[in-house]
């Protein structure tokens, strides 16, 4: 295989779960919620996807069950952070830690006595006729699992929902100024809850992607911090659904480059390449690529009057 094609295909593969999770986080953050439970929702999505696919024998039902597991975790976060009016950072961290413990517990029950863990049927790459014949870009972009095509389709959909519908306007208004939105008749707590749960569904699909389109098995803590990387991607993508897709691709490329360099035996410490994506995020935050502005109400605890 052409090494460039191989590298690009790896970048897209690695970027796909990051794109799903970051797209969900954009929705939550635009509504004013910084959701650190995305890592936990992803992990729940991975386990839900694995168990769902094993139980039903259908990987697609696994994706659905993974999405529901992600939604359940994010609903728990919404309950504590939005309805319980606790600090969002602390609530998100706690829910993620709880998910790490819970998924480990359930997995050990499910895989007890097995020497192989869960053996899950994976979703094979599907080449798109015509497009996959384009030189270089074709086989890299258009010979991927269907979950990759779906996230490419989901990004413009999320953009349309956020920026072209009344629902999106109300959601973003709540994220900028909860008081003003409430004065205009928006139920801020409700829109934030819906946004967080949508984010959880997408994070669940992100986790299911790891299991059902990549590894074919579950491992405890297998998300390995991807949820937190997704939050950095949202910053790098400037809280925009399409920007986030580009940023996820950049993270995927940096990671793929790291594996390619190690395989080639280059005498550069691999930690250097692991660092690259985070440097990108820092550069984005310093404003080199233009002014970055987070939603004004991001992470702010709602006053009792805000939600009515």
């Amino acid at each position, binding site marked *: *295989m052409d*090494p460039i094609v*191989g590298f690009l295909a*790896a970048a897209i*593969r*690695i970027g796909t*779960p990051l794109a799903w999770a970051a797209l969900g986080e954009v929705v939550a953050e635009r509504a004013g919620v910084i959701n650190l439970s995305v890592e936990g929702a992803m992990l729940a999505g991975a386990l839900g996807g694995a168990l769902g696919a094993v139980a039903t024998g259908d990987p697609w039902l696994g994706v659905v069950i993974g999405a529901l597991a992600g939604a359940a975790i994010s609903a728990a976060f919404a309950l504590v952070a939005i*309805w*319980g009016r606790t600090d969002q950072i602390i609530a998100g961290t706690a829910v993620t830690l709880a998910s790490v413990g819970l998924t*480990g517990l359930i*997995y*050990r029950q499910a*895989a007890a006595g097995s*020497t*192989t*863990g869960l053996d899950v049927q*994976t979703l094979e790459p599907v080449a798109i006729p015509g497009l996959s014949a384009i030189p270089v870009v074709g086989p890299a972009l258009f010979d991927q699992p269907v979950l990759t095509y779906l996230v490419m389709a989901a990004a413009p959909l999320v953009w349309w929902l956020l920026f072209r519908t009344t629902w999106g306007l109300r959601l973003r208004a709540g994220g900028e100024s909860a008081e003003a939105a409430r004065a205009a008749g928006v139920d801020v707590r409700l829109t934030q809850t819906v946004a967080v749960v949508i984010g959880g569904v997408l994070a669940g699909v992100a986790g299911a992607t*790891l299991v059902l389109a*990549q*590894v*074919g*098995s579950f*491992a*405890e*803590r*297998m998300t*390995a911090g991807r949820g937190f990387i997704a939050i950095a991607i949202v910053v790098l993508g400037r809280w925009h659904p399409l920007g986030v897709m580009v940023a996820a691709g950049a993270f995927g490329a940096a*990671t*793929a480059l790291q*594996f*390619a360099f*190690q*395989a*080639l*035996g280059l005498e550069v410490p*691999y*930690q250097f390449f*692991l660092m690259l994506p985070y440097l990108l995020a820092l550069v984005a935050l310093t404003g080199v690529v233009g002014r970055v502005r987070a939603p004004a109400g991001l992470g702010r605890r709602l006053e*009792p009057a805000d939600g009515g």
Partner: protein
Amino acid sequence: MRRSRRWFGWVGILAAGVGCGGGAKPPAGFRVALITPGSIADAAWNAGAYAGLQWIKDSLGVEVSHQEARTPGAQEEALRTYAAQGYDLVFGHGFEFQQPAERVTGEHPKTVIVVTSGERVQGNVAPLVFRIEEGTFLAGMMAGALSKTGKIGFVGGIELPPIKKGYEGWVNGARRMNPSIDSKVAYLNTFDDASAGREAALAMIRLGVDMFHHNADEAAKGLFQAAKESPNVFVFGANADQSELAPDRVYGSAIIDLPRAFLAVAREVKGGTFVPKVESFGLAGGVIRYVSNPRVAVAPDLEAKVTAARDSIVAGTLLPVPPS
């Protein structure tokens, strides 16, 4: 708001109840504890240690306890807690427990702390040294002889000294059969990220690697998946018999019989014959072994060469990793 406050109160009471569940047992007879640096559901390094602990419990009829501790701080705290509770024997399962164990033994000299893959003796701290390079050497011989492309690959979790030594044994074994073998290696910086394990393997497969070995615990699940997806790519299992992970793509595994080693040490400590020393295990005692997968046959003369090398290593005439 009133109703939801009360609800949170109940959650707090429930959480406190769960937290207290395990405590307050009076100290009893001989007690053994195990601290693993990762999940005991990894079908390899940590699972083997847990099986060893269960074997100790069943064979010696003693009380056992297990904890998972992933960070240096948590590992030291877990060691200290068991020692303070008067456990007679504590296994710190990995090289990373050496320094915490040395600090804890000064405070609690009665507890024997055994560091699996440790470095040196200090106080009542004794290392179990597994000469895994003896097993990986035999796996490497197979890989060197069987590789059609002349390229072999190794995926490691973190570049710890025992893991590096296992890798060196693997390469030396392969070079014994094919001196011009091209060896590639990648470290993931994690033992959990199975997706990274798959990508590291795929990056090497793109360069023509067709024989793999690993020491990456859970993350290696992705490596087995990459082999299953790619034609003519094979894996050699590590630390446990991993043939089941890809039944027609595993020639064999370089295993550590952790339960056997753990039970041997526990017997000595319980019997009062234990003296802190470097407990070294290799092919000779059967703790390190190369086991082939009966479903994937290899030529009998290759089997014979590997068996001959095994005998030479046991006899001490062949060094898998010559001292540098």
